[in-house]
């Protein structure tokens, strides 16, 4: 496929909605002294639909304070800024894609289960490896496949063709995307994440979750999401668009400094966290 055709396809990303300013402010609050928590809360409160979803989410079993949080200020005190900020970002981004798949072309429930699962497994692995800011690993896992949603929204006919080829040729969805579109969800998702000015490490995890050794900013985060995506596929958690477990490259385990045995040590915690995360998925869907 010609480069200019591919470039035009990538430019279609600009047709997707912008990230709501509250999500942008929530993400960049720590680095922008002119945005205060008070200002953030007052801008979020202008959108009561978002406030209500955020409160439903922070009151879900996922965060362990079922029904005890009555306001955003209270959420900040009990859960901390990072967690509330991530909840705001998740809700805002997922709101943009809320109508996707309603035509029956794909099952959004299984898509989000895979996304939440990858977030949960990323958080468990990063927690076991004692990485800082495990919440960011959750967000990176949650958003790793947003490029697939962008494809469905921008190129619905191509997406149906991709699914057909995946089934007929027994190939992975990324192979199907490259064959039909000339682009795949990692490139499209990365372009979208850049447009939304998501943190660089999350942009990288979206771009390199099939080849984390190419990441520069936070290779461990990309490798964690890569491994988590593979594990969710292997454990049949949700659906990533095909039924194949990809080969795990030993380079990714080297980046994380782990042996396969380490994975066995994470499985119990993954089961426990997935139970709690069901409430997270329920709020999103």
């Amino acid at each position, binding site marked *: 496929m010609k480069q200019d055709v591919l470039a035009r396809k990538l430019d279609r990303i600009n047709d997707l909605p912008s990230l709501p300013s509250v999500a942008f402010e929530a993400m960049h609050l720590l680095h922008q002294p002119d945005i205060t928590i008070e200002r953030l809360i007052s801008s979020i409160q202008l959108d009561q639909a978002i406030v209500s979803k955020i409160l439903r989410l922070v009151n879900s079993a996922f965060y362990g304070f079922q029904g005890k949080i009555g306001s955003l200020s209270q959420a900040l005190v009990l859960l901390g800024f990072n967690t509330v900020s991530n909840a705001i970002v998740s809700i805002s981004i997922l709101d943009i894609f809320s109508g996707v798949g309603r035509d029956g072309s794909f099952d959004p429930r299984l898509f989000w289960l895979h996304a939440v699962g990858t977030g949960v497994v990323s958080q468990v692995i990063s927690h*076991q490896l004692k990485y800082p800011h495990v919440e960011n690993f959750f967000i990176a896992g949650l958003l790793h496949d947003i490029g697939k949603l962008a494809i469905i929204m921008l190129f619905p006919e191509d997406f149906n063709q991709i699914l057909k080829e995946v089934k007929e040729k027994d190939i992975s969805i990324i192979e199907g995307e490259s064959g039909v579109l000339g682009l795949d969800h990692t490139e499209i998702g990365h372009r979208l994440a850049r447009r939304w000015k998501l943190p660089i490490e999350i942009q990288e995890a979206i771009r390199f979750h099939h080849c984390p050794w190419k990441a520069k900013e936070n290779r461990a985060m990309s490798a964690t999401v890569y491994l988590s995506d593979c594990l969710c596929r292997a*454990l049949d958690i949700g659906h990533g668009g095909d039924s194949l477990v990809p080969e795990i490259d030993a380079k990714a385990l080297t980046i994380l400094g782990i042996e*396969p*045995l380490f994975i*066995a*040590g994470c*499985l119990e915690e993954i089961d426990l966290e997935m139970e709690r995360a069901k409430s997270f998925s329920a709020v999103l869907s």
Partner: protein
Amino acid sequence: MTKAIEKTIPIEKLTPNMTLARDITKPNGDLVFGQKGKLTDSIIVRLRRFGVRKVTVVTGKADEYQDPEYIEKKMKEIEEGLNYRFRKVDHIPLMIELKGILSDHLKGKLLS
């Protein structure tokens, strides 16, 4: 309720129903196997191969009885599901090892 008692035992006495009291780490502190990990026969073999000599375990309750036919059917489903999902990578040593780890875990969950 059963009161948890910790006991350090040689690896040879470790059995699949036991629960670890703490993480197993390398001398430099790197994590080898997390405390919450489920112990199965193959995990114990792997731990021995890894050079682990002693572990600290807590006492646990016996497994509940379940219908053997149901267990057998579910075990078969687990195996078939894994074989299907791993169909393109089941010749790669790392993936064979991972499949074994997941199979042990999923089957162990069924029995616990």
